[in-house]
């Protein structure tokens, strides 16, 4: 069930200010329309997790942790490891977040990131099924939003990929039908992609990448586009109660590829894959 959300309102004068600035080609925080805020990624921030990372885009801060175990595979995918992505919009991160189970925004965010990871095969799940049909690896990615100043999705995607890429995966030991993880022997992830998510907001008919909180609240609609280094698109999600033209979608896809290198650089710096 989904209800039209009651969102914080932007003061009319401020709205006017933002609109006037955009008409002159300037964003309220001084950025260009295709310019990200500063990006910072650090990995290995929680030693109890097999993989972890902190991502900052401007003031937006998201932590992600990867925990690894063994589980029974899904019956329709007996030969594949299991990936579970969950997001918590922790109440300390924003006055608009309430304690409780994930709401539709948290669920949507987790599912979009899940699709980006699954579609691009960041983790080759078929290589993580030591006993197909019986016992396979399970990877939990838990996304923890710590400070919400706009564009949670791109920040959460960065944190998730960084945590997964730097995860120390315990080796499996198979004795007959018994499978166990040896946590003292680890290896790095078997991967085949480095997806990057770029969100573009449509604010007063202008297309702005990496919207800050005010821009997000004023946006008619947003679109998140996840791309790979193979020049492909692996996940798209339109969000918000507005509309895009076909031409605007084309421009958004262009922006997603245009912004990719800078974000990828920050990510590669953190995960040590130059």
């Amino acid at each position: 069930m989904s209800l039209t959300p009651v969102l914080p309102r932007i003061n009319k004068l401020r709205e006017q200010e933002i609109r006037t600035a955009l008409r002159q080609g300037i964003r309220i925080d001084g950025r260009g329309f295709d310019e990200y805020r500063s990006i910072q990624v650090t990995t290995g921030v929680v030693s109890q997790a097999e993989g972890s990372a902190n991502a900052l885009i401007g003031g937006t801060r998201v932590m992600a942790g990867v925990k690894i175990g063994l589980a029974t595979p899904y019956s329709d995918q007996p030969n594949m490891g299991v990936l579970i992505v969950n997001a918590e919009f922790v109440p300390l991160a924003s006055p608009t977040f309430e304690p409780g189970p994930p709401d539709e925004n948290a669920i949507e965010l987790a599912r979009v990131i899940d699709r980006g990871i699954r579609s691009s095969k960041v983790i080759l799940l078929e290589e993580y099924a030591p006993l197909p049909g019986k016992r396979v690896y399970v990877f939990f990615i838990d996304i923890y939003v710590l400070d919400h100043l706009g564009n949670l999705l791109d920040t959460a995607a960065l944190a998730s990929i960084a945590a997964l890429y730097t995860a120390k995966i315990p080796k499996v030991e198979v004795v007959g039908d018994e499978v166990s993880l040896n946590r003292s022997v680890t290896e790095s992830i078997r991967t085949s992609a480095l997806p990057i998510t770029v969100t573009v907001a449509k604010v007063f008919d202008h297309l702005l990448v990496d919207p800050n909180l005010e821009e997000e609240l004023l946006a008619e609609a947003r679109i998140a586009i996840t791309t790979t280094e193979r020049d492909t698109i692996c996940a798209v999600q339109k969000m918000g109660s507005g509309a895009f033209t076909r031409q605007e979608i084309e421009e958004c896809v262009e922006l997603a590829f245009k912004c990719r290198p800078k974000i990828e650089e920050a990510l590669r710096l953190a995960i040590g894959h130059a």
Partner: protein
Amino acid sequence: MQQGGGAEGQAAEEWRRPDGRAADELRPLRLEVGVLENAEGSAYGEQGRGKILVAVYGPTEVHPRHMEHVDRLTMLCRYHMAPFSTEERRRPQPTRRDIELSKVIREALEAAVLTERFPRSMLKIFIEVLEAAGGTRCLGITLASLALANAGIPMRDLVVGCAAGKYKGRIVLDLSEEEDKEGEADMAVAIMPSLNRIVLLQMDGELTREEFFQALDLAIEGCRRIHKMQVEAIKRKLQEGLALTPPTEEKE
């Protein structure tokens, strides 16, 4: 296989959709408006094996009260799959998928409804998938906008949904459940056809830029064809209404 849409030449004979359709062919589609007694508006549709029923209630008072908007309508949307709608029984509780789809469908419909006409009011849209066969969110949207029209809710345009995707190397229209499972990519699109606006766009799988826009354009083309059927369905309902109106001379 790498080429996507342009594989006509070499593999034309090998390539075949499971149900024998052409790449740009829709499944048989049936739309019906005004099928429920209680609801203000309703619609029923079948697409291949898929069966969906949609009801619209309202506008009513807003409940819970704190979800009220002083300047516009509060829309409630529930996308739900019946426990018997899939091969394996589903638990009747909403899944994470149901919650996400309810949100994107609500947002798509909100783009069309003149929400500013109904301050402090609430409109409820219930989408029940009775049998799932791929493309249920798109058919759900198509039917929801018919049910809204049937309820007399003013809209900028109808909303119509259609999926496209990539199946065994080719861009195809309106994926069936089987094609969705085995295919390389899936894209759900909903548009306002007269205003030429995209109100829902979701994609997963992997597509090149060229394939992405090929799929998008094919889905939009599918939406346009379905839109014609939507208009026909509304006309049929209106004509039926006229036929049922008692002739004036009988009154005395």
